[in-house]
C-alpha cells in the first residue's frame, strides 16, 4: 500500500480529477495549502506598501492506493497537472503501514478500494 501526496496548481484540480476517474481511482482527499517552491511568490501592494515573496495557493491531494494502482495514479496526476512550466508541483510517494475502514473495521488492502 502506498500513500501519494501531490501538490498541484489549483486550477489543474478538475483536470487531475478527470484523469484519476479514468484510471479508476475514485477516492481522494483534497485540501488547499500555501506553498513556495522554485516558482517565486507574487508581489502584492497594500495601500502602497509592497509585500514580496508571498506564498502561492496550491492544492494538495492525498490518495491511498494498493501497489498495483500506483503507476496508473502517478501517470494520471502528471497527465492532469503538467504544463511544463515552473510551479506545476510535486508528487510524493510513501509506504503506507495500514488502512482501516471505520464503518466495517476492514484492514489493509481491502479497506483502501
Amino acid at each position: 500500500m502506498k500513500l501519494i501526496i501531490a501538490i498541484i496548481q489549483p486550477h489543474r484540480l478538475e483536470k487531475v480529477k478527470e484523469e484519476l476517474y479514468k484510471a479508476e481511482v475514485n477516492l481522494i482527499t483534497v485540501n488547499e495549502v500555501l506553498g513556495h517552491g522554485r516558482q517565486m511568490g507574487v508581489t502584492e501592494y497594500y495601500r502602497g506598501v509592497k509585500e514580496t515573496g508571498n506564498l502561492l495557493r496550491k492544492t494538495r491531494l492525498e490518495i491511498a492506493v494498493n501497489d498495483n494502482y500506483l503507476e496508473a495514479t502517478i501517470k494520471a496526476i502528471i497527465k492532469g497537472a503538467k504544463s511544463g512550466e515552473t510551479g506545476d508541483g510535486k508528487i510524493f510517494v510513501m509506504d503506507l503501514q495500514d488502512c482501516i475502514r471505520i464503518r466495517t473495521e476492514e484492514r489493509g488492502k481491502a479497506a483502501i478500494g
Partner: protein
Amino acid sequence: MLNMVDTLFVLFSAVLVMLMTPGLAFFYGGMVRRKNILSVLMQCMVTLCLISLQWMLVGYSLSFAPAKGFWGGFGWFGLNGVGFSSCNDYSSTIPNQVFMFFQMMFAVITPALIIGAFAERMKFSAYLIFALLWSTFVYDPICHWVWGAGGWLRQLGVLDFAGGIVVHTTAGIAALATTLIIGRRKGINHIPSPHNLPLVVIGTGLLWFGWFGFNGGSALAVNGVAANAFVTTNAAAAAAGLSWALLEWIRNGRPTVFGIVTGSIAGLATVTPASGFVSVGSAVIIGLLASVGCFIAIAIIKPKFGYDDSLDAFGVHGIGGMIGTLLTGLFASKVINAAGADGLFLGNPKQFLIQLFAVAVVALYTFSVTFLIYKLVDVFFGIRVKEKDEIVGLDLTQHRESAYTILE
C-alpha cells in the same frame, strides 16, 4: 417655486441610489470565483468615481441640457449654469443641481451593471476606457431621448418612470453584446460558480434598499406618485423573489438563496419603468412575470445558446428592463399618475406600440454602438486579459491584491 421638502426628498433618494453601486459590487462580487472578487469590486468602485466626474464635466449636459436632436449638447458643460434655481422642464420644485446629483447616480450604476457580462476576464485599463466611452456615446444620448427636454422618444410619449429603458435595457443589451464578443471564461467547470452567497445577499439588501430612492425618488416630489412607487417597487420585488423560489422548488426540488435574491432583483429591474404608472395589484403581476421571464432566459435559453453572461446582466437586467417597459404599456393608468398615460388594458393600445418601438430602437442602437466601442477599445488596448492571468485570477494580476488569506 422651490419646495424644500421635495428637495430634501430627492437629495435623500440620490444617496440611496449612490449606495446601490457598492451594493451591486457585493451582489456581483459574491457571484464570481474568489480569485476575482476584488476585480469586480474595483470595477464598480472606479465606475462610481469615473462617471461622477464624467457626469459633471459633460454627461449631464449631453443628457439633460434642453435640446432637440441626438443629445443635449454642451450648454451645461462643466455644470455651467446648473445651480440652485430649478429647471422647469424636469421639476419646478427642486434645484437643477439637486436633479443633476440624483441623475448622476443613475449614470454611475448603469455602466456598472454591464460588468456582470464580462466579469472575470476583462483588463482593468480597458474597462476604464470602455466605461467612459459607453457612458458618453450610449447612456447619455439615450437618456436624452427618453428623459431629456426635447428628447424625441419623450415627445413620442414613451413611458419610462425610473429607467427600464434608460438604465436596464441599455445595460442589459450592452451586456449581451459584450458577452457575445468577449467569449467564455477559461477554466470554468460549472456556471454559475459563486464563491460567497452571503455577500450576494448583502448586495441584494443594499440594492433593494437603494431601489426605493431609484424608483420613489424619480417622482421628484413628495406626492402620491412617489408613495405609489415605493409600494409598487416593494410589491414587485416580493412577488418576483417568492415566485422564483417556488419555480425552483417545483423544477429542481429545492428553493435556493441564490434563486430568491436573483428573483427579487429581476422584479426590481422589471418594475422600474412601471413603478410610477401602475397600481399595486399590477405591480404584483409584473413581479410574477419578471421572475418567469428572467427564469426562462437564465435557466433555459442561456444554457441552450451557451453564451457566458457570467453574472446574468442580460438575463436579469436586459430581459427585466424590456419586459417591464412593455408591461408598462399594458398596465399604465392615469388614475395612478395623471402625467402618464393609459395602457392597452385601459383601452389605449397605442401606448403599447410606443413602448415596443422605443425598446426596439434603443436595443438596436445600444447593441451596435456597444459593439463598435468594444472593437475600438480592443484594437487599441486589448480587452481580454492574457490566458495565464485569467487562470491565476484578476485580483492578483490586475491589482496585486488578494481578498482572502488562508494563513495570517
